[in-house]
């Protein structure tokens, strides 16, 4: 009760502070020799208020204060403490409050960390950021107040959706938001820099840090979501090209493009308009994602409570931001084309432009695939579905030249270069083609496109691997990231080509036996935990070599809300995952069993970690210099 009041009023005070900051900033902008300390102080105070409000919500969850509507809807006294806390951002209202918290935190960090840039630039960035912050404040207070109270006070809450009760998902939203919100800083500062006409090499190396930070978080956030889908949705897949996944991938693609583009701008004054467009679109794509997910326009496996009223607010807000940025772009931006022609077709610049070209293509495929059904439905009321086959058909063939360019590109020098070790590069290409050919031949999965795809991924793998030794520490961050990417593509390919699956119905005591695998359904046990009861099944699985493994998948019956989920049991080893799930079959005394062997699963996660580690390294290297 008290917590709700404090939380609510600190939000309102925070909104008032926003207005104060805007007022102070405008005053300061006219007379801008130094940054007014009042601004810094107000930003800090705003951060404190939002944190206070957020903490109030967290403690309402911890103490199970059911007079708070959000807590009532999403928590229960029997939940473990960890999920009570993670329940804070496992719902719409709480997650928005977290957004706001990260927004205020980042702008404050931006203000104190940015030292060498002009004061006017800092103030303008703050102004644009405050527009976003105000939008979120109003959105929270108006349509999704986390501190609505209920009277009479209910005795018990409705509970957290069981599929959200998972460690990976508990930390997935905060990490992802750090990525999204980081892109808001890029958005604001790109607009500010455009207004002041200071998109330059210097600006590029300053904003690069923020690009890297949000890129690392976004990459990790997407990975956590994917791990969660793999464990919790229970069918052994990790990426479904579901709208919710696509909307997180789109900002990532834009941000990755921007990251490469910034590298060029750091060296020479070209691609300025392009950098601005990318900075703007990264954040608008994040917002667009929020809109598509929260408004419930698209249906998805990932459950979100949705509400058209909220959808409308985000939509209007999103398009106001787009219009503001269009205005700034068209009126203030003067493109400088001086150094344009100054590089050869065989140079680092060209390879990065090629990277941009392909990334934009991938982005357009994902974007069009995601929103096209909406357009078709509105314009001609035809309903269609766009799913994995569409994305595979349009993306996979283009990956081949992309991977090759990725292998050769970093070896080129700026402006003009020759390929020095042509011989070894061709040799490596032939070796990788042969290797992939024989791998596929041995496992009898020989499709031409697969062979070429694996060849190009293997090529990238070899080239980057070799570079660890011949180039030593020269640009090791980039090399690690590219090496990780080749590993990612290879693991995904091998995983999808060589996964095997057995679907069967078994009673207790029965054995499934084909020539390769024996599945013995040993027993079932009942188990009771604080927040669920479960039936644990025990299986002995014997492979052709006679090695027996025990796997115990579960069926959980959660008490609050009353939902049955099936928990997969996964045995992870370096080379493959063994994955088993059981399901009840309506009105039958047998269970439906799905057993999968999925090679290289672990490597998918490891390679994504490697990619983000590359980004992290690049960040620290920059600071060191």
């Amino acid at each position, binding site marked *: 009760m008290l917590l709700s009041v404090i939380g609510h009023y600190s939000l309102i005070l925070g909104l008032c502070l926003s207005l104060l900051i805007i007022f102070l900033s405008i005053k300061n902008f006219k007379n801008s020799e130094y940054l007014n300390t009042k601004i810094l102080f107000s930003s800090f105070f705003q951060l404190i208020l939002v944190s206070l409000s957020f903490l109030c919500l967290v403690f309402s969850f911890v103490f199970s204060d059911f007079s708070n509507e959000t807590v009532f809807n999403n928590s229960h006294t029997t939940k473990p403490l960890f999920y009570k806390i993670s329940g804070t951002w496992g719902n719409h209202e709480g997650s928005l409050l977290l957004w706001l918290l990260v927004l205020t935190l980042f702008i404050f960090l931006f203000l104190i960390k940015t030292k060498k840039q002009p004061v006017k630039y800092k103030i303008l960035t703050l102004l644009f950021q405050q527009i976003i912050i105000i939008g979120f404040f109003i959105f929270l207070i108006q349509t999704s107040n986390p501190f609505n109270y209920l009277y009479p006070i209910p005795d018990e809450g409705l509970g957290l959706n069981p599929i959200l009760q998972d460690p990976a998902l508990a930390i997935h939203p905060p990490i992802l938001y750090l990525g999204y919100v980081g892109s808001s800083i890029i958005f604001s500062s790109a607009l500010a820099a455009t207004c002041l006409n200071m998109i330059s090499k210097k600006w590029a190396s300053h904003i690069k840090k923020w690009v890297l930070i949000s890129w690392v978080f976004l990459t990790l956030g997407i990975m956590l979501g994917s791990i969660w889908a793999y464990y919790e949705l229970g069918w052994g897949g990790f990426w479904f090209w579901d709208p919710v996944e696509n909307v997180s991938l789109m900002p990532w693609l834009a941000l990755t493009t921007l990251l490469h583009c910034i590298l060029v701008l750091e060296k020479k004054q070209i691609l300025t308009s392009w950098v601005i467009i990318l900075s703007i679109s990264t954040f608008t794509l994040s917002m667009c994602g929020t809109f598509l997910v929260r408004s419930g326009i698209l249906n998805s496996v990932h459950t979100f409570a949705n509400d058209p009223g909220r959808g*409308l607010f985000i939509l209007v807000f999103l398009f106001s931001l787009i219009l503001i940025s269009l205005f700034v772009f068209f009126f203030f931006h003067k493109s400088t084309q001086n150094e344009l022609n100054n590089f050869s077709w065989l140079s680092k610049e060209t390879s990065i432009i090629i990277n941009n070209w392909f990334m934009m293509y991938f982005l357009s495929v994902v974007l069009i695939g995601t929103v096209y059904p909406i357009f078709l439905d509105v314009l001609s009321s035809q309903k269609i579905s766009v799913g994995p086959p569409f994305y595979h058909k349009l993306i996979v063939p283009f990956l081949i030249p992309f991977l090759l360019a990725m292998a050769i590109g970093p070896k080129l020098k700026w402006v003009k270069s020759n390929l020095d070790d042509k011989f070894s590069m061709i040799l490596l290409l032939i070796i990788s083609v042969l290797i992939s050919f024989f791998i596929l031949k041995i496992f009898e999965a020989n499709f031409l496109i697969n062979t070429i795809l694996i060849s190009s991924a293997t090529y990238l793998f070899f080239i980057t691997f070799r570079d660890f030794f011949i180039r030593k520490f020269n640009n090791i961050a980039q090399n690690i990231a590219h090496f990780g990417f080749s590993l990612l593509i290879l693991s995904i390919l091998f995983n999808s080509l060589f996964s095997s699956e057995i679907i069967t119905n078994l009673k207790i005591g029965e054995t499934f036996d084909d020539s390769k695998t024996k599945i013995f359904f040993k027993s079932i046990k009942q188990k009771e935990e604080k927040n669920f009861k479960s039936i644990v099944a025990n299986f002995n699985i014997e492979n052709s070599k006679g090695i027996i493994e025990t796997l115990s998948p579960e069926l959980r019956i959660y008490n609050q809300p009353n939902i049955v989920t099936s928990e997969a049991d996964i045995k992870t080893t370096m080379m493959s995952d063994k994955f088993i799930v059981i399901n009840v079959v309506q009105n039958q005394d047998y269970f439906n069993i799905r057993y999968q062997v999925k090679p290289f699963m672990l490597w998918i996660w490891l390679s994504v970690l490697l990619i983000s580690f590359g980004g992290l390294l690049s960040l620290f290297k920059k600071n060191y210099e």
Partner: protein
Amino acid sequence: MNKKILKITTTAIFIIIFVVFYKALQDTNVYTPKKKSNNEIPLFSANLFYSNKQTDSSELFKLDKFYLLNIWSSWCVPCRSEHSLLMDLSKNEKIEIIGLNYKDKKRNAENFLNELGDPYQEIIFDKEGINAIEWGAFGVPESFLINDGIVIKKYIGPLNKELVKEIQLLIK
């Protein structure tokens, strides 16, 4: 000049996108197949519930009468509520009700009928839920009004008093 065209087109594109999204907000996102009427009944072979005989769908609906095909199951809660309405409807001589028992255990289904009465002239026993898909159904209960080998009307979800009145009117 070139830049002006660019400005106008970009703004126009975003306005169009806004309008489309705005309109899309008003619609539901849950898909239900269009209720196509005046379709011929599907051809399939079915297992009969009581006699356990194989029969053909054309055999079941051969008379020059109205038929109501009702998909039901003993484990389906809404089926229970619509059952009494079906019992009433079965008294009407102009219509024959054919049941399609969806993914059920025979014993449970028999208990269900013993308890609540049996309005069905004939029951198709669809243990694996395949016949229901042939009809283009995706849940229980669903009902199809059939005349002369043609589906006149399709009802998704349980019938209620108004809908039964509508059926009574249609078959007059």
